[in-house]
């Protein structure tokens, strides 16, 4: 049973437009959420995170939104750039622990 799901395996966006990547979770104990970006032949790198006490966290072009009632989070990238093309993973943690549960990833392609 997947506790963290990314239902869109891929997303294609035009450069300069907004990219919206979605993530759903089922475990109500999750209280901290992270997004990672992964380029081919490299390990995932941390992008942005959000605590369950917030509903929005912004860092430059990246904003993460959390809807606890819907158990849904999203990552907005605006404006999208070709260098943003990568696989994006959402991850969740419960109870202050370090264990992360990852989604299956969404491949973002930003076309010039």
């Amino acid at each position, binding site marked *: 049973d997947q506790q963290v799901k*990314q239902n869109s395996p891929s997303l294609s966006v035009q450069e300069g437009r907004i990219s919206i990547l979605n993530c759903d979770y089922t475990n109500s104990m999750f209280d*901290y959420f*992270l997004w*990672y970006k992964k380029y081919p*032949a*490299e*390990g*995932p*790198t*941390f992008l942005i*995170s959000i605590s369950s006490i917030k509903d929005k966290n912004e860092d430059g072009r990246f904003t993460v939104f959390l809807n606890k009632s819907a158990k849904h989070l999203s990552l907005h990238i605006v404006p999208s750039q070709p260098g943003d093309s990568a696989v994006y*993973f959402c991850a969740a*943690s419960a109870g*202050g622990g*370090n*264990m*992360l*549960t*990852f*989604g*299956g*990833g969404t491949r973002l392609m930003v076309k010039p």
Partner: protein
Amino acid sequence: GAGVSQSPSNKVTEKGKDVELRCDPISGHTALYWYRQSLGQGLEFLIYFQGNSAPDKSGLPSDRFSAERTGGSVSTLTIQRTQQEDSAVYLCASSSMGLGTYEQYFGPGTRLTVT
């Protein structure tokens, strides 16, 4: 560099052979994790080490998989009698254990191909 390092970067082995994958975490990080990513799949948790505590082995897919962490630093993941379904990228990550430090830092991975 000061990041997580893994070796080898690529490993091709014949079915039935044993392999050892190495991870060198960030200095001072007490938590170490192993994941694997099969083709087209997400990150599958394998095992978690935290300081001197007994490791969390709940993600290991079979008893052919084992891991150890010596001296609280370097870790070795061993796969015995490899099977073709073991082919994947094996990723190691480390993190510190302060309150609220959820971020894990990943190495570049070892691509294992079992022929």
